[in-house]
């Protein structure tokens, strides 16, 4: 038995990975179908959506055949899927560049914002949730819950505007909208397309600090938003754990409160928490649409929103597909993370 066990473990694990990959593939296919549906089926005439009302018959026909609209729907869908898988998201009608190139230029700015915001949210939100659960129904709990409640009741774009008014216009503590002041633009040659990292790598510290003063406000807002969510989740997970019997046992055995809370309860709450954090990262990437619009941040959200107005459907769907795909992969990764972190889902040692 013992000799067979590792092999069957390996097969089981391989099977699990394959199932995971299959799920990703099916969901991605569904996402492609969804964007196809939005782009081709909902608009009454997708060609008119591209060429506009006043196009000549010639231009109309050209686009009509280029889009393959003369072929049956399933063939169109197959061609569309193949294109997307090859990384061809079509051409943006406003920038006249391939959508994928555009997305890759704008993506680092969004990533910067979402990552820093999430880090801030974790640093503030998880301890807040722990405190809230530990002093359940006492004043720290009430305070943190009210702060959290305000966080997910407030329209984030409005808070951004108020923040700009107070901290930029009134107090002058932070820099205004945009990623960087105009006269610093172009000083740093792009390496990763993220201004913070690039200016650090190039040793351009004035540019770096300028970029920091621009990013502080949007990051704090996203951080506040994710803190509100994470503290609520941490609180309910910790409340679950702290009422379990093993906590009582640990206390009876004389473990210190710090040991009980952080060493025992938080460790158990951490497993679902990691998946929640991974999922909220995807949510932040999406939530940045509004924040980027407010702050004129040259990220993917801003790109999608401004493409919407120019009727640039390729850019909109490309952006939706990219963020959706990231979302799906994060989703699946968090599942895998869950199974690797949770010792109960590991095969028993023999």
């Amino acid at each position: 038995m013992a000799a067979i066990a590792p092999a069957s473990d390996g097969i089981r694990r391989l099977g699990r990975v394959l199932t995971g990959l299959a799920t990703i593939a099916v969901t991605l296919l569904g996402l492609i179908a969804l964007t196809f549906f939005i782009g081709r089926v909902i608009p009454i005439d997708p060609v008119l959506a591209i060429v506009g009302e006043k196009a000549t018959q010639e231009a109309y026909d050209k686009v009509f055949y280029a889009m393959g609209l003369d072929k049956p729907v399933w063939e169109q869908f197959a061609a569309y899927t193949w294109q997307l898988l090859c990384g061809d998201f079509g051409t943006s009608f406003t920038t006249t560049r391939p959508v994928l190139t555009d997305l890759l230029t704008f993506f680092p700015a969004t990533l910067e914002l979402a990552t820093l915001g999430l880090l801030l949210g974790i640093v503030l939100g998880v301890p807040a949730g722990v405190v809230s659960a530990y002093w359940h129904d006492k004043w720290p709990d009430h305070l943190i819950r009210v702060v959290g409640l305000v966080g997910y009741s407030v329209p984030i774009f409005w808070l951004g505007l108020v923040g700009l008014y107070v901290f930029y216009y009134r107090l002058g503590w932070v820099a205004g909208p945009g990623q960087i002041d105009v006269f610093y633009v172009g000083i740093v040659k792009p390496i990763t397309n993220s201004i913070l990292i690039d200016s650090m790598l190039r040793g351009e510290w004035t540019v770096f600090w300028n970029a920091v003063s621009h990013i502080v406000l949007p990051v704090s807002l996203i951080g506040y938003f994710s803190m509100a969510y994470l503290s609520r989740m941490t609180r309910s997970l910790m409340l679950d754990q702290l009422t379990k019997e093993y906590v009582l046992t640990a206390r009876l055995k004389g473990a210190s409160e710090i040991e009980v809370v952080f060493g025992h309860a938080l460790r158990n709450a951490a497993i679902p928490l990691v998946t929640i954090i991974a999922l909220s990262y995807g949510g932040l990437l999406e939530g940045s649409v509004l924040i980027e619009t407010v702050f004129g941040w040259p990220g993917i959200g801003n790109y999608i929103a401004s493409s919407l107005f120019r009727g640039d459907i390729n850019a909109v769907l490309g952006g939706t597909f990219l963020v959706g795909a990231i979302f799906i992969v994060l989703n699946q990764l968090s599942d895998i993370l869950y199974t690797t972190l949770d010792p109960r889902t590991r095969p028993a040692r023999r």
Partner: protein
Amino acid sequence: MSTMPTHTIARAQVRAAQFKQIKSFCRRFARNPSGMFGFFILVALLFCAAFAPWLATHDPYLPNLSGRLSAPGADYWLGADELGRDIYSRVLYGSRLTLLIVGLVIVTSAPIGLLVGVIAGNFGGWVDTIFMRVTDVFLAVPKLLLALAFVAALGPGIVNAAIAITLTAWPPYARMARAEALAVRNSDYVNAVRLAGASEFHIIVQHIIPMCISSVIVRMTLDMAGIILTAAGLGFIGLGAQPPLPEWGAMISTGRKFIFDQWWVATVPGFAIFIVSLGFNLLGDAIRDLLDPHLKARP
């Protein structure tokens, strides 16, 4: 002969028991101060929407260029916007649009989700697989972005915004309803009804959907704040209600240009959104605490 009277007596008893339960629910709800506060905000919102013409001091659509961007004061209680329209009156009328969107989305998304979930859970097999895969795809795509893409294809407007939000809001209901349906579809009482010859349709409508209702109501109240925020976000980007409709998100969007010098134009409608979504969140939390069958089971 005696079956009829006992039947009616049983029915009367059931009704009395239901009435008692509702009364106890109200009593417990009244003891929850934050829930009452949320309820109060909701009532105030309904009041504003119903009596907007009487409460308003100005016509919300009538421009008055001599008073454009005037500061809050005796004439314009909360200031005037870039066309000299009274912001206070516009916010009052905007409450109707907010209620319209929330109402449209809730009325459509909850039944759609409920139906999909119950059918999937009740029939199982390939029906379940297909329905749940579709649900998963919708769940996997970020909500606001999907709504944006839908509106981009449908064209901007308040009804299209509501449709787009509905299309992104139904999947959680489907998940929930499926879980409930799976739990009860093989329970004894459902099997008893099935043996007695009830059709699947009858079972779904009479016996499975009622079991989902309380979770659906909880989810609905918790969702409302999110719907308001999404609708306002769409309005802010310019894809929701179109001018001159006094939709709160769109009002913030126009006020954005004046944020530094005339802060009230953007701030006031945002505050209205905040208060209303806070109210729905408080109400939703309170109702969940009282109604959620999964929470009740816990000590």
